[in-house]
């Protein structure tokens, strides 16, 4: 009974806060609404017995949303929400597509004859995940590590300003527009 109540509480809260992300005016409030939605989803994951993954989702999303708040304030006007904010395009089209998607998914959810559970749930889900990642799923773990490393390199390359080795731009025949010319002026 308590589990069912918690499921509905967390589920409705996750959806409401998710919807508020696109309704609030302040960028800071928007970011924390998204964080609340993630935290309630993590609570649902915890309800399903995945204690380690639930806690990791909370920790990861708190950090991610704090970083996101910085970017929101960097790139968005009206960070404090002092005036109404509306930056939409094709709102009715987007609404109809998303409602249609929800209708198709919800219909499929209730029409599909889902299979019965195969196997029994492990008593220690964290140990089971760890053994899997360090055993049969080691290749997955290594690929994820490589992907994260490649992401670090790619994002640094993309986000840093072009340095002195890129001062010619696209036209290599022109003289570079250096504020202080280097070399020996030959």
């Amino acid at each position: 009974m308590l589990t069912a109540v918690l499921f509905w509480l967390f589920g409705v809260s996750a959806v409401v806060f998710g919807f508020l992300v696109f309704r609030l005016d302040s960028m800071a409030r928007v970011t924390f609404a998204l964080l609340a939605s993630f935290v309630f989803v993590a609570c649902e994951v915890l309800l399903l017995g995945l204690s380690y993954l639930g806690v990791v989702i909370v920790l990861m999303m708190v950090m991610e949303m704090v970083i996101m708040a910085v970017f929101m304030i960097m790139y968005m006007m009206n960070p404090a929400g002092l005036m109404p904010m509306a930056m939409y395009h094709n709102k009715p089209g987007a609404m109809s597509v998303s409602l249609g998607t929800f209708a198709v998914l919800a219909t499929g959810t209730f029409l599909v004859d889902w299979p019965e559970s195969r196997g029994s749930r492990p008593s220690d889900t964290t140990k089971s995940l760890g053994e899997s990642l360090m055993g049969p799923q080691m290749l997955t773990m290594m690929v994820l590590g490589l992907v994260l490393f490649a992401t670090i390199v790619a994002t640094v390359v993309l986000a840093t300003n072009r340095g002195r080795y890129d001062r010619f731009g696209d036209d290599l025949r022109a003289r570079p527009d250096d504020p202080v010319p280097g070399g020996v002026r030959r």
Partner: protein
Amino acid sequence: MNLELFLLLGSSLLAIGLYGALSQQSVVMLMMGLELMFNGLVVAAAAFWYYVAPVAEGQVLIVVLMVVMAVEMAVGFAVVTAIFRARDVDMTDMAADLRE
């Protein structure tokens, strides 16, 4: 509490995220929509693990989804920073070159 209810919750989050990704002009808000869609997928994956296949590989799928969320946000912000440096663009409508 059953599989269908969890999938319904995941579908709701995915649909809300899709609405945001399609309707928002700001690239940052668009990425928030994508994050919400992944949020829905996490719920669905956890529910499938619990109700259909409670094997460790199901948990690994959730780990993969979380890595995808982190990569999506990092690359998204890096691209926004690069395009903002190059062209002062921070809205999707201003970066519609491929559409023309």
